[in-house]
């Protein structure tokens, strides 16, 4: 009985209807929550809960209206299961229906491929200035809390703690490389940090007692998260490092403290450390140097015509040192990563930004869509020829 339902065409139609509703309401929500947050809420979840937006007409009175929609991780697998069930129970292979088999097989492959992409793909970016080089990628969305061992003169030892580990509740973490515990006293997904001396109103009590926050008398206010596409949240935390004898100190760390700020360093048990909260980095075993960035506009206007970066890849391990050009629709594929020309510093026009993608499953959509297209042409071409023959 259950099998009959799982393999039924009616279920397929219902699932398609639900997917329609999901995509539509997900798109509507993108206005307020941005693409990434909506992706997680709607397409990377089992159930999505849609809420009547405040910004719509009668928003105030209708804001209580919620309704649940099956999410991507529910509909996708169900569709795959439904397809497989239908084929194993109901379908009989006939040559004139071969197209449909190919289409469905391609579809299953596509869905599985998209799932693997969602789970495995890494998308980062990299800024390089003309005349300089960069050897790490930065994440669009993730931050990390890093404690660096800077004692050695040649090598820095990086302990990277993903932000997700310290953001939910006050947490306590340990790592064999660190002789102290890392305890998070407070976490702000987005914050405003201002010098205390500048303030006239009363401000919340700040408990940090070392480092930048303490020296500059900073005050931290919690702020609602931003979902706008070109804004980044000021991820901030107050971290207490606790050794065997008690606390070494409490620091204020934030991803807004970039390299124009003094490093927050300290010593413990004859070793020097640095603590920093920053955009999550992925270091590469090679360097990319920007030799020249150029940007053309259509004459007499500001509309960009093309932009391109001449870069040099310096890989000491592979003794590689070569130049190449990266521009729109012409990325650099190197060592499993693809570098796309994404943006540039519009003020100075001397810095270039690359979108760097690592997607092992990149081939799957090509194969699966090719299959589906072939199946469609086969199936409909067949029908078209047959029906026009009938007409005559």
């Amino acid at each position, binding site marked *: 009985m259950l099998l009959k339902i799982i393999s039924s065409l009616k279920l397929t139609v219902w699932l398609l209807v639900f997917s329609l509703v999901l995509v539509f309401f997900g798109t509507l929500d993108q206005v307020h929550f941005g693409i990434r947050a909506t992706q997680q809420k709607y397409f990377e979840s089992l159930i999505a809960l849609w809420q009547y937006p405040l910004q719509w007409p009668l928003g105030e009175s209708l804001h209580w209206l919620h309704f649940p929609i099956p999410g991507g991780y529910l509909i996708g697998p169900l569709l795959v299961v439904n397809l497989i069930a239908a084929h*194993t129970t109901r379908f009989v292979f006939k040559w004139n229906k071969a197209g449909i088999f190919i289409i469905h097989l391609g579809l299953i492959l596509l869905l599985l491929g998209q799932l693997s992409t969602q*789970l495995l793909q890494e998308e980062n970016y990299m800024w390089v200035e003309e005349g300089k080089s960069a050897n790490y990628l930065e994440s669009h969305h993730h931050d990390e809390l890093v404690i660096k061992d800077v004692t050695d003169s040649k090598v820095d030892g990086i302990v990277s703690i993903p932000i997700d580990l310290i953001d939910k509740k006050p947490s306590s973490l340990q790592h064999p490389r660190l002789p102290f515990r890392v305890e998070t006293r407070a976490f702000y997904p987005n914050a405003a940090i201002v010098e205390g001396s500048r303030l006239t109103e009363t401000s919340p009590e700040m408990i940090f007692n070392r480092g930048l926050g303490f020296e500059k008398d900073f005050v931290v206010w919690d702020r609602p998260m931003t979902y706008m596409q070109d804004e980044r949240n*000021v991820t901030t935390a107050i971290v207490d490092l606790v050794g065997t004898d008690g606390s070494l100190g409490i620091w204020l760390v934030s991803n807004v403290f970039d390299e124009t700020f*003094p490093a927050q360093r300290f010593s413990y048990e004859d070793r020097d450390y640095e603590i920093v909260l920053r955009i999550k980095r992925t270091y590469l075993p090679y360097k990319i140097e920007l030799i020249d960035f150029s940007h053309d506009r259509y004459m007499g206007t500001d509309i960009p015509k093309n932009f391109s970066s001449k870069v040099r890849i310096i890989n000491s391990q592979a003794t590689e040192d070569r130049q190449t050009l990266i521009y729109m629709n012409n990325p650099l594929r190197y060592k499993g990563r693809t570098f796309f020309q994404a943006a540039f510093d519009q003020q100075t026009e001397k810095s270039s930004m690359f979108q760097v993608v690592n997607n092992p499953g990149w081939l799957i959509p090509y194969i699966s869509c090719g299959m589906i297209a072939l199946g469609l042409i086969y199936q409909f071409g067949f029908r078209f020829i047959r029906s026009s023959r009938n007409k005559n």
Partner: protein
Amino acid sequence: MINPFKYPSRSILSIAALFLIGCKRQQIVYYEIAKEDNSIEQLAGDTDLNRESRGLPPETTGSAANPNWTIPEGWLPGKTSTMRRGSFTVLGPDNQGVDISVTTFPGDVGGELLNINRWRKQVGLSPISIDSLDEHIVTKTISEMTYRIVDFSTEQPTLDDNYPQRTIVATVNQEGNSWFFKMTGDAPLVTIQEEVFMGFLTSVHF
């Protein structure tokens, strides 16, 4: 072929297992890199810290209206650029040239030290440290506005020019926007034009 649907409970379990394996678990990682030393030891600039991230640079040059000014005699129209609210050029003997630009941005674009070091870099000078920042800035009141002025030159002619280069930048804040009046070019001509430049600043009224 085994029909998975004959054994529904087993199938569900295996699918669930696949899912769990697929989901990445967050972990603390340790790795080593060659030594980096990329922070200045001192603080830079103002510290009102809600800055845009480096993810995408700010796109606007501000929508503030241009002030009024009187273009001095001898100043010809200079290079056009979307960033420049005003652009002039002065030509001198022996192919000397001087470029004057007026630009504006909301906020302070990263702070004084960063700006000064950027301008220094444009003529090939090394950056200065926060300690010497105050020595380099002169504050002047011109036409009831407070300008912070920096003035520096290279000792020798640079690679591209036959003369040493000199840059004078006067910065003023107006309604949350920073306005930069910058004159840069061959040092002898800049010296001659210095007074004219000051006169130009006197004529600037918002």
